[in-house]
């Protein structure tokens, strides 16, 4: 899964690097981009290179923690990274990001104010929202006729062996905290102990854990329900309207993936150019076409089709409030990972 994406993207980026290297005599520098796998359409990278002559070296990761570890551990200099909100918060607090010069971003005004000045970057000094999403429940309504409103319904006994969930400890632990009515950013020892039996019961009913493409098992009919990223649910809905997206009644959180410039970046100018390019409505629309998460770009939303805007997984109806993740420190990340390992292992 991770491996597949990585290999695929490695191949693509190699191909891209080679073609650009040969086709581009008037090279105007480069941009070392470090981003999520399967999140930036190739057409966007190609378009940027065609227009500016800047070569984009694209490296990928498949979890926020992986990005953080590689950014901090390596001497490699990335010019632009795409951290999720809570990882960006940690980077800002540790002085690892350069401030973004808004005067160089002519398209900054396209962003919707509700996605600015959020808790991870209150002054909006260091980050630019890329895409936003929720984590929720997908139900194949052809196979599941009873109502599914929240985590308790999803993981009920009758759905045992028919569930896919993202393979992400923090997400699953968060769902358990919601179920117990606790704050999702409070992983105190008492809360960790409280969610453990809940997760143990859930895990005994999960058919598979897949973060990269949870939609695949739903599409093929191997499972009938899932706890997945909103963008995956949106793709399922595009494919077949039998896949309903449900925001759990116990509570749901929203994630914001950002663009940011790390402290050791060499091509700061190019990073700004790329951010401004992404903020263009027609470019941002390309991203929405391929990865239908919630687009924080108002001008881009105007270009989307009514069908795209009506997708409940991309643009949940109503004005429900969502929580966001905060950075909780390495000890918590490790405690969650250890619990996940232990619970998966105890299953049989």
């Amino acid at each position, binding site marked *: 899964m991770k491996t597949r994406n990585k290999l695929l993207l490695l191949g693509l980026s190699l191909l891209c690097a080679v073609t650009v290297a040969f086709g581009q005599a008037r090279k105007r520098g480069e941009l070392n981009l470090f981003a999520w796998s399967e999140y930036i359409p190739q057409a966007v990278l190609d378009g940027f290179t065609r227009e500016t002559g800047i070569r984009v070296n694209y490296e990928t990761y498949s979890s926020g*923690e992986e990005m953080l570890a590689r950014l*901090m551990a390596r001497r490699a200099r990335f010019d632009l990274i795409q951290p999720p909100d809570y990882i960006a918060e940690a980077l800002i607090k540790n002085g690892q990001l350069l401030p973004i010069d808004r005067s160089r971003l002519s398209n900054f005004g396209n962003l919707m104010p509700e996605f600015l000045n959020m808790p991870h970057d209150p002054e909006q000094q260091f980050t630019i929202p890329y895409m936003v999403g929720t984590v929720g429940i997908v139900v194949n309504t052809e196979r599941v006729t009873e109502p599914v409103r929240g985590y308790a319904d999803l993981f009920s006994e009758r759905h045992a062996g028919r569930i896919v969930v993202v393979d992400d400890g923090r997400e699953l632990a968060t769902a358990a905290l919601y179920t117990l009515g606790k704050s999702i950013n409070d992983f105190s020892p008492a809360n960790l102990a409280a969610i453990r039996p809940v997760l143990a019961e859930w895990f005994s009913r999960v058919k598979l854990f897949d973060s990269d493409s949870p939609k695949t098992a739903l599409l093929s009919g191997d499972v009938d329900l899932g706890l997945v990223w909103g963008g995956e649910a949106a793709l399922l809905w595009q494919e077949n309207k039998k896949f309903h997206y449900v925001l759990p009644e116990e509570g749901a959180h929203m994630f914001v993936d950002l663009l940011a410039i790390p402290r050791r970046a060499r091509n700061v100018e190019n990073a700004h150019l790329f951010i401004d390019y992404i903020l263009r409505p027609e470019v941002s629309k390309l991203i929405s076409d391929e990865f239908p998460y919630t687009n924080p770009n108002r001008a881009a939303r105007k270009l989307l089709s009514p069908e795209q805007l009506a997708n409940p997984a991309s643009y949940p109806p109503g004005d429900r409030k969502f929580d966001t993740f905060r950075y909780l420190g*390495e000890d918590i990340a490790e405690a969650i990972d250890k619990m996940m390992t232990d619970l998966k292992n105890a299953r049989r």
Partner: protein
Amino acid sequence: MQGLPGTLPPNPHARPAGAWGWWLLAPMLAWLALFVVAPMAILLVYSFGSRGALGVVELGFSLENYERIADPIYLRIFGRSIGYAALTTLLCVVIGFPAAWFIARRSPEWRGRLLLLVMVPFWTSFLIRTYAWIAILRSEGLLNAVLKSSGVVPHVLPAPLDLLYTPTAVVIGLVYVYLPFVILPVYASAEKLDGTLLEAAQDLGAGPLRVFREVIVPLTWPGIAAGMMLVFVPAIGMFAVTDLMGGARVSMIGNVIHNQFTRALNFPFGAALGVVFTLLFVLSYALLLWLGRRRDETAKAR
């Protein structure tokens, strides 16, 4: 892997390598130093360090990471990984030995064709082949379609097989991936085996079982041993098959190490697991050598 020391006599024509020999070896030595010795050294240094803010590795000398491995959670996973790898090795030998023997006993031109068939899967990416297995095993996949259309499912089996995302699927995946690694070395040993020895054994009154046990197995042992090593060692650390075909439900030690670097932000602990893991390899290698040597000695003693 054919020349496992202790299983073959030293070459009587060998001469000490001259300066030329070392020059020819230089690329290989450089490769080893750069891609085996150096990473292992980094792993060893990291494993004594500790995790700092934002997952930065702080070097030092602490045995904490090794103490943590003694946690029952991780010991159980080590145990399970060894169990899976051992089962995979056993199945690979049971399936691979007859196949290799069969190929080795064909005419030379058929041998070439059959060997080619064994190697054809390597022309496709391992991941693509694993995805093919997912398509075969899934609940509405090829296997169940065949079972249904042939009438096996309602008549012989009550329901379609639910194999994908189970430990069985993991073992199927592992055996599939590593089978050629048993067939090829066993074939190499079996092909060299002089057929007249089998005839001689039979003439002297040995039954088929005795011929197998006392002639065939000892003479193909180098191939079997090499095949077992080639399967057992990488199978312990495999994480892609458990993720893809096991639905990430079954953790093997490879998955745990992978997680330390990608999720838990703990490089030093991952490194310590890697070091212990490498030691396990060395141990299992030593065990196989010892088995081989003992076999040689008992053979000589007769």
